[in-house]
C-alpha cells in the first residue's frame, strides 16, 4: 500500500511540474510570441494580405494561396524558396546566411521559410506565381516504365483543371509516413497542356528518397494526393530555330509533353531528341516515340545506350549521350539546345553544345537537384 502511495505521489509530482511548465510555455506563446496582425504587400499593391504574425513567411504565404516553390518543405536546407523582401524582413538570420550569395543579399533576396512575419512587410514575387494553385488529385494509373521508373497518371479533382505550358513542373506532396515529415518534390509534367484535367508524372526511384520511396512503396491507384504548381521557365522558345533535345532517365518528362503539344498544334519545327540510358532495360516510351518519328517529318528520335548488355541485341547508338550528340551535330550555330536530367549530364552536354556553336543564350535546361 505504501509503495503504491509513493509511486502515485511521484507520478503526480512529475505530471504536475510538467503541466505547470506547459501552461507557462503556452501562455508565453500566446503573449510573448504574439505578433498580432500584419499586412503583407505583394508586388507594390498587386495583392495585400492580412495575416497573423509569428509564423515563417513561406507558410504564411502558402496559407493565403501564394505558393513559393520549395523542395525541403520549409526546413531551410534547399534554399529554393527565395523571395525579394523590400521592407520588414529584419536582419538576415544565421540559418539563411549560407544559402545567400552577396549578390542575392544586395538584391534583397531572403529565404522565405526562415524569415518570420513579425511586422508589416513588402515583398516581390514573380507574377506567374499568382497562377500557382494547390490541387487535389486522385491517382488514376501507375505504370512501370522501367525497373526503377514509374509513370503516375493523376486526375485533378479540386480544382478540376490546370493551365500550364509544356516543360513546366509541379510539386507533389509526400504526406508524413514512417519517420518522415511531409515534403514537396518537384516533377516535370509529362502530359501535354491540352489535357487540362489530367497530369502525368515520370518518377524515378531515388534510393533513400523520401518522396520517391513513398510513390514506389505506399502510393496505389485510387489514392488522393496534393500538389501545387505550375512552376518553371523551361519551355519552348518563340523562335523557329532547329532544336536539339537531350535527356536521360526521368528527364524524358518535359519532352514527352512538348512533342505531343507540338504535334497537336502543328508546330513543325525541326527537332532531334537524344535520349540516353545505360542498358535496354532503362529505355522507355521508345515505341511511342518511334511512332511519332514516322508520323512527323520534322521529328527525329535518337536513343543511345552507354553500356548495352550482350543480351540487349542493341544495334542503335552507343556511348555517352554527349559523345552521341557530338557525332550527330555538325554545325549548331542556328540551333537551340534543351536539356533535362542530372546536373553532371547537363554540365557535360552544355559544353558539347557550346563547342558545336550553339549560343549560350540558346541553351535551356532543367537540372535535377
Amino acid at each position, binding site marked *: 500500500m505504501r509503495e503504491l502511495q*509513493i509511486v502515485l505521489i*511521484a507520478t503526480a*509530482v512529475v505530471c504536475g*511540474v510538467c503541466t505547470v511548465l506547459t501552461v507557462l*510555455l503556452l501562455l508565453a506563446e500566446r503573449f510573448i510570441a504574439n505578433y498580432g496582425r500584419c499586412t503583407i504587400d505583394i508586388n507594390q499593391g498587386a495583392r495585400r494580405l492580412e495575416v497573423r504574425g509569428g509564423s515563417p513567411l513561406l507558410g504564411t504565404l502558402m496559407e493565403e494561396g501564394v505558393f513559393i516553390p520549395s523542395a525541403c518543405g520549409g526546413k531551410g536546407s534547399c534554399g529554393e524558396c527565395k523571395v525579394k523582401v523590400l521592407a520588414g524582413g529584419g*536582419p538576415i538570420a544565421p540559418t539563411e546566411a549560407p544559402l545567400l550569395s552577396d549578390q542575392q543579399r544586395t538584391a534583397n533576396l531572403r529565404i522565405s521559410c526562415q524569415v518570420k512575419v513579425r511586422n508589416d512587410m513588402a515583398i516581390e514575387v514573380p507574377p506567374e506565381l499568382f497562377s500557382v494553385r494547390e490541387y487535389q488529385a486522385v491517382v488514376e494509373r501507375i505504370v512501370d516504365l522501367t525497373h526503377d521508373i514509374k509513370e503516375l497518371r493523376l486526375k485533378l479533382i479540386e480544382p478540376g483543371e490546370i493551365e500550364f505550358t509544356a516543360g513546366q513542373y509541379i510539386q507533389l506532396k509526400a504526406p508524413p509516413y514512417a519517420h518522415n515529415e511531409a515534403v514537396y518534390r518537384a516533377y516535370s509534367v509529362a502530359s501535354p497542356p491540352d489535357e487540362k484535367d489530367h497530369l502525368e508524372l515520370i518518377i524515378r526511384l531515388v534510393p533513400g528518397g523520401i518522396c520517391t520511396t513513398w510513390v514506389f512503396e505506399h502510393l496505389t491507384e485510387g489514392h488522393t494526393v496534393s500538389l501545387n504548381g505550375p512552376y518553371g521557365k523551361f519551355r519552348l522558345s518563340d523562335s523557329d530555330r532547329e532544336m536539339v533535345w537531350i535527356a536521360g532517365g526521368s528527364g524524358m518528362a518535359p519532352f514527352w509533353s512538348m512533342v505531343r503539344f507540338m504535334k497537336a498544334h502543328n508546330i513543325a519545327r525541326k527537332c532531334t531528341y537524344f535520349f540516353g540510358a545505360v542498358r535496354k532495360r532503362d529505355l522507355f516510351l521508345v515505341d511511342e516515340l518511334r511512332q511519332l518519328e514516322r508520323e512527323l517529318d520534322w521529328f527525329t528520335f535518337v536513343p543511345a545506350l552507354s553500356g548495352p548488355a550482350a543480351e540487349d541485341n542493341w544495334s542503335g547508338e552507343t556511348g555517352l549521350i554527349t559523345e552521341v550528340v557530338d557525332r550527330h551535330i555538325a554545325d549548331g550555330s542556328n540551333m537551340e539546345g534543351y536539356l533535362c536530367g542530372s546536373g553532371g549530364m547537363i554540365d557535360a552536354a552544355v559544353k558539347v553544345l557550346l563547342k558545336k556553336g550553339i549560343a549560350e543564350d540558346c541553351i535551356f535546361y532543367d537540372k535535377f537537384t
Partner: protein
Amino acid sequence: MILMLADTLAKEAAGQNLLAIFFAAAITDNILLTRFLGMCSFLSISSQMRASIGLGLAVIFVTACTGAINAALYWFVLIPLERYGVPASSLQLILFIVVIAAFVQLLEMVIERVSLGLYFALGVFLPLITVNCAILGANLFLINKNLTVFEGFVYSAGAGAGWAVAIILMAGIRIRLKTARIPAALEGPGITLIICGIMALAFIGLSGLIK
C-alpha cells in the same frame, strides 16, 4: 591574481561566503576541466572564438537561472514531499531536465521578442544548451552540496562561468593551433582532448585551495 583574490576573500570571510562559492565553482571545481561535463559542445564550438564567447555567455545565464529554479523546486516541493516517503533524489533528475528544457524554450521566445540581434547571435546555441550536461551537472551538484536557493544561484553562475572560461581558453589555444604542425591523426578533436587533459592537470593544482 584572481586566485589570490579569491583566496584572501575566502579567508577573510568566516566560513563559506558567496564569493567563495562562486570562485570555487568557477576555478577550483571547474565543471568542465575537473568533471569533464559538457564536452560535446565544448569540442565542436571551441574551434571558433566568437561562437565560444556567445555560447559561454548563454551557458552562464541558463545555468544560473535554472540552478535557482531547480534549487527552489528541490527545497520547496521535493523535500516537503519526503514526509510521504517519496525520496527527493529519485525525482530530481527527471524534473531538473524538464525545467531546463522549458526554461530554454521560454528564454528563446523572450529573446526573440526583445532583441532580434541577440536572438540571431545566440539562436543557434540556445537549443544546443538544452542538452548541455554541464548545466544539469551544476544543478545536481548544488543539491549534493546542500546549498540554499540563493547560494545555488551563485554556485551555478560560477559553474557556468567556469565552463565559459574553459571554452574561451580553449578557443584561444585553438587559434594558435591553426598554424601549428599537428600529426594528421590528432587533428581536430584528438589534439583538443589532449590539450584539455593538460589544462585539467593544471586545474588539479588548484584543488583544495577553497574548501
